[in-house]
């Protein structure tokens, strides 16, 4: 039988795993902070949360948006802290890629070298043995190790649970929160009890991981910090003093990485956005971009209330248009097209048959709702104006001035978003002028908003007044592909 020792690959992946899992936990807390409320139903109706990690109360007599609900957590528990969701998302997705790659290497070598024997039980008798071990620990004693193995029975079962259940569980519940996965495979979200249920389960998984780490550290200390760290650093029990010292050096190095990531994210967010975004972008485009919505929720599932992220344009021009049912509103479509056009709302309604889709809306903050959206398929608009060959992107310019309209948003200026022309041509990309069978409400973007069902909500520009076909976006705003990308450092492509 394979000697269950501590080969180099096992030791290296252990410490790399410590780095990635702690990055995941802290960046996950940053993501929680942006909407620190948890629900069982995908409607996320205000007041129905089963858990909240905020003391904020929202007004009832004034429209608030979910940016007002956002919390600022300390950098000690979240990466980077201080309401920096864009940075938190970059670190989370970058770390999860690193964590999965580390896990793949670990699993392949675990089975290739026969080291899996250390984790997989051979007999049912391990369960009563594990129970006895637990009682032994509770009486502040150490149970015997399994014969010829480096672990006792309860440790073996715990590691098997964490490796073969908890880690895949976290990946699967995380995946269930991707708008692209949800759009293409609605059954998969239902498998977890819905999008919010998946979010809850992901949180429970996080808490179990934190609990595991705490108990693991107690175990290492109880069994002998020097002895076990010697095994995990040198591969054998020797030089315990050096092992203790080196274990703290390694932990200090991991803390230093966290510190650097935090400081860099707070002081040089654009650098982090570009660097980590480039790593994650490839995986997103390859795995998630091709996924097109196949959602068709029933009318009974429509959310009675739909939260908003972003407040309506607080300008007299907009209000006068609204009170006249947007009769004076015009949509200009231009840029790199053969046929620049100007449309009224009636023109858009008459342009082609209305498309209706009942879908799950995913806010970047984590809340959801189910709505029915009707309007003009964007691909029909594309065909109508005929983009020139050099057009590669579509820019949606809105009537919202964020500095004026949304003090909770960081930054100011006209809100805009850019999508790839390939995304504009996808069947679920819609210029919506109706919601739930009624004219699109003001708070949801009247008279016209974008729907891109495999991306998160902020890409779906509201209160649109102009659409421009462009060859590049580096000279628009800060050049990152949208107002949120410029100011909150989100990725331009947000299929997760």
């Amino acid at each position: 039988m394979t000697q269950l020792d501590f080969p180099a690959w096992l030791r290296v992946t252990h410490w790399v795993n410590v780095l990635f899992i702690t990055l995941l936990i802290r960046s996950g807390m940053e993501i929680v902070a942006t909407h620190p409320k948890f629900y069982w139903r995908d409607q996320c109706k205000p007041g129905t949360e089963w858990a909240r990690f905020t003391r904020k109360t929202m007004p009832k007599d004034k429209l608030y948006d979910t940016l007002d609900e956002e919390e600022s957590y300390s950098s000690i528990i979240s990466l980077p802290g201080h309401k920096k969701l864009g940075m938190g998302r970059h670190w989370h997705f970058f770390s999860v890629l690193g964590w999965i790659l580390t896990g793949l290497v670990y699993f392949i070598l675990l089975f290739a070298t026969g080291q899996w024997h250390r984790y997989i039980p051979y007999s049912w008798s391990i369960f009563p043995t594990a129970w006895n071990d637990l009682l032994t620990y509770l009486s502040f004693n150490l149970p015997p190790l399994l014969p010829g193995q480096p672990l006792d029975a309860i440790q073996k079962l715990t590691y098997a649970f964490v490796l073969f259940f908890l880690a895949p569980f976290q990946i699967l519940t995380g995946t269930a929160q991707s708008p692209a996965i949800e759009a293409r495979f609605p059954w998969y979200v239902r498998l977890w009890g819905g999008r919010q249920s998946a979010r809850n389960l992901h949180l429970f998984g996080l808490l179990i991981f934190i609990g595991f780490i705490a108990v693991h550290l107690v175990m290492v200390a109880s069994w002998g910090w020097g002895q076990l760290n010697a095994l995990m650093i040198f591969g054998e029990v020797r030089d315990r003093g050096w092992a203790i010292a080196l274990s703290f050096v390694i932990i200090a190095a991991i803390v230093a990485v966290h510190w650097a990531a935090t400081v860099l994210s707070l002081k040089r967010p654009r650098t982090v956005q570009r660097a980590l975004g480039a790593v994650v972008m490839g995986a997103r485009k390859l795995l998630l971009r091709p996924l097109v919505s196949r959602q068709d929720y029933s009318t009974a599932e429509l959310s009675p209330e739909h939260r908003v992220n972003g407040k309506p344009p607080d300008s007299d021009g907009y209000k006068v248009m609204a009170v006249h049912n947007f009769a004076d509103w015009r949509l200009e479509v231009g840029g790199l097209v053969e046929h620049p056009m100007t449309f009224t709302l009636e023109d858009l309604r008459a342009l082609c048959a209305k498309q209706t889709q009942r879908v799950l809306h995913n806010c970047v903050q984590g809340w959801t709702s189910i709505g029915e959206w009707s309007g003009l398929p964007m691909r029909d608009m594309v065909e109508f104006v005929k983009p020139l060959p050099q057009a590669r992107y579509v820019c949606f310019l809105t009537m919202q001035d964020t500095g004026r309209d949304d003090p909770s948003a960081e930054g100011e200026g006209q809100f805009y978003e850019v999508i790839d022309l390939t995304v504009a041509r996808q069947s679920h990309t819609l210029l919506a002028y109706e919601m739930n069978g009624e004219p699109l409400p003001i708070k949801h973007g009247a008279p016209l908003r974008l729907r891109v069902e495999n991306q998160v909500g902020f890409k779906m520009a509201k209160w649109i007044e102009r659409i421009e076909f462009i060859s590049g976006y580096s000279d628009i705003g800060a050049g990152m592909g949208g107002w949120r990308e410029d100011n909150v450092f989100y990725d331009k492509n947000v299929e997760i």
Partner: protein
Amino acid sequence: MGAERAVRPEITVLSAEQKHRVAKQLRRYGITCTSCGSEDLDIGDGLYLGFLFLREEQDSYLIALTCDNPDCLAPRTGVRVHESQFLDKGQESAGGRCPRRAGAPQ
């Protein structure tokens, strides 16, 4: 009924009596078309501003005004009023609060 013919969800449809009250306010404060100066203004529906818009007072409405002058270049405008100035509930006076054209200083 198709949504294209539906009243917007935020719109308050004014009764004849409520429109009469708005017209009284327009006459009282000498409000005319911002584009051509005409006094012939059709009073339309109302939009409750107080909830939706960040800087609006809680009881603020915008009433649609359409200029009857066929030569007017911008016939669709609006006037901001307080709910007590045209809604049925209560009999409180304007209390010195003037209706303001949309676009007039606060």
